[in-house]
């Protein structure tokens, strides 16, 4: 019985050992029956055998380098500590609050001053930071202090929670949203006193303070909305490349009411109408809700349940910042828990322009479905 002659694709797959047993047996039979085919197969096999000599790859990078970039603490730490801190992607260092920071088998006896916000890494959500506790952010992350102050730490920033009304920014850059009431950011290069505002403090090269809303006092200088203090001088801020900015972008009436606490999807159309690229932070801040914050009639809406599958289908890589080219539109879908959907919603976006030139405007539309 003549076996059917396999096509070249099947012959190659056979030589590579990729065929399932039935198909492999059929090809074996064909090879046995057809010397020309067997010669052809042998030539493929001889060619493929050459790859035993394929050059060995260079060494991969050291694990420590990868772990540091990923925000994983050193694995030599005790497992419970390593698990907690690796998941948190932060180091919470010793001091009076250290005991509060370790996962405890017993219920905590007092509320921490601040909590880490974010559910993109298990074990991280709600981790407490007590007075004197220090946070070193290897990736951007969000901290809520005393339930009222929102701090978005940039990757590389180091901050100590001194009290409910004061933090010390030792290193890097952080963005603050402070509701009315006293708050102080002390830094090695001077203090910033706040009376309800949103602003950024950067101590990477000297003290730089950029104010979005309200006013702050930094040393002898008063910095107002839209202004920036750098090198001891206050000037219009413009939009500094790489700096965080939050802008209210939309106020809408919810199209229909849903039950409080219900999970609904919110489709957002991001459009960069400006002449330069617009970068919004990556998934770390998406996951913490810092990217887009929604305020509904029931208060702040948690936007941490980003639907990654749908976001991906919208062309987003959840592990990279979202970059919108000039005139580009993208759609992203959030799944949010709503306290109530009736009434007005206010949406603001946190973003970092890439270039020196200002972004002219952006628009976001919201749809509850």
């Amino acid at each position, binding site marked *: 019985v003549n076996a059917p002659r396999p096509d070249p694709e099947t012959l*190659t797959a056979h030589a590579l050992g990729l065929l399932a047993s039935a198909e492999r047996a059929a090809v074996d039979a064909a090879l046995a029956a057809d010397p020309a085919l067997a010669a052809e197969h042998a030539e493929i096999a001889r060619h493929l055998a050459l790859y035993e000599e394929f050059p060995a790859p260079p060494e991969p*990078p050291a694990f420590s380098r990868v772990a540091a970039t990923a925000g994983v603490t050193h694995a030599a730490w005790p497992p419970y500590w390593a698990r907690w801190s690796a998941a948190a992607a932060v180091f919470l260092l010793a001091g009076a609050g250290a005991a509060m920071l370790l996962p405890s088998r017993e219920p905590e006896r007092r509320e921490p001053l601040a909590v880490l916000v974010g559910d993109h890494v298990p074990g991280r959500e709600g981790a407490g930071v007590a007075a004197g506790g220090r946070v070193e952010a290897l990736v951007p992350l969000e901290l809520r202090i005393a339930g009222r102050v929102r701090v978005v730490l940039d990757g590389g920033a180091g901050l100590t929670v001194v009290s409910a009304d004061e933090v010390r920014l030792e290193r890097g850059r952080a963005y603050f949203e402070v509701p009315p009431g006293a708050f102080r950011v002390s830094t090695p290069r001077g203090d910033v006193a706040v009376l309800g505002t949103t602003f950024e403090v950067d101590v990477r090269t000297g003290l730089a303070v950029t104010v979005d809303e309200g006013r702050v006092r930094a040393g002898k200088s008063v910095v107002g909305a839209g202004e920036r203090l750098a090198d001891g001088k206050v000037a219009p801020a413009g939009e500094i490349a790489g700096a965080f900015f939050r802008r209210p972008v939309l106020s809408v009436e919810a199209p229909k009411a849903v039950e409080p606490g219900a999970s609904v999807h919110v489709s957002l159309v991001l459009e960069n109408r400006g002449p330069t690229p617009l970068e919004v932070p990556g998934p770390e801040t998406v996951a913490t809700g810092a990217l887009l914050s929604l305020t509904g009639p029931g208060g702040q809406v948690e936007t941490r349940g980003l639907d990654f599958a749908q976001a991906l289908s919208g062309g987003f890589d959840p592990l990279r910042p979202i970059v919108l080219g000039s005139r580009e539109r993208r759609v992203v879908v959030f799944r949010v828990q709503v306290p109530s959907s009736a009434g007005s919603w206010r949406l603001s976006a946190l973003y970092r322009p890439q270039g020196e030139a200002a972004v002219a405007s952006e628009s976001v539309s919201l749809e509850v479905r």
Partner: protein
Amino acid sequence: VPEGFKPGPEETLLVEVGRGDARAFEALYRRFARPLMAFLTTLTGDATEAQDLVQETFVRVWRAAPRWEARGRASTWLFTVARHAASNWRDQRRVRQTAVARAEPRPGTTSVERTELPAALERSVQDLSEPLRTAFVLARLHGRTLAEIAEIEGTAEGTVKSRLAAAEAALRKALARHVPPHPKAAS
């Protein structure tokens, strides 16, 4: 879910990584860093870029592992993540180097100490188009199955077979002088 699939040690490891276990992450790295380095070096033709991409792959793995479900091979998922990382790198490079038709490998990627055959093998693989190169490297150098390659590439198994045959034919032609003569032809 592949037929007859049962989670093995590598899948268990990845689940542990998803729970934030740093030791599991290190074990996963020890297991897969070299294969992925080999894969990405061949894909990019650039050892330095490949190192960066290995790093990026594992950063992505660490962050995305909580969402991974043990319904397939961990190794397939890791190669898929690496593949996407390389794809992004390629897109960015295309933007950066629109005037350069093909990036030359950096020093260190090819070594003058290497014998002629390994260098020729590496060169010929680099000359393949990316889809052919990826399929061939995964099949021949990493022992991936048709189904796994199809999953990594996001394409059909039939397409993978076609690419493998095309790659093999192109490579055999390029390496003709290195292929040992047929025993009958030699005698």
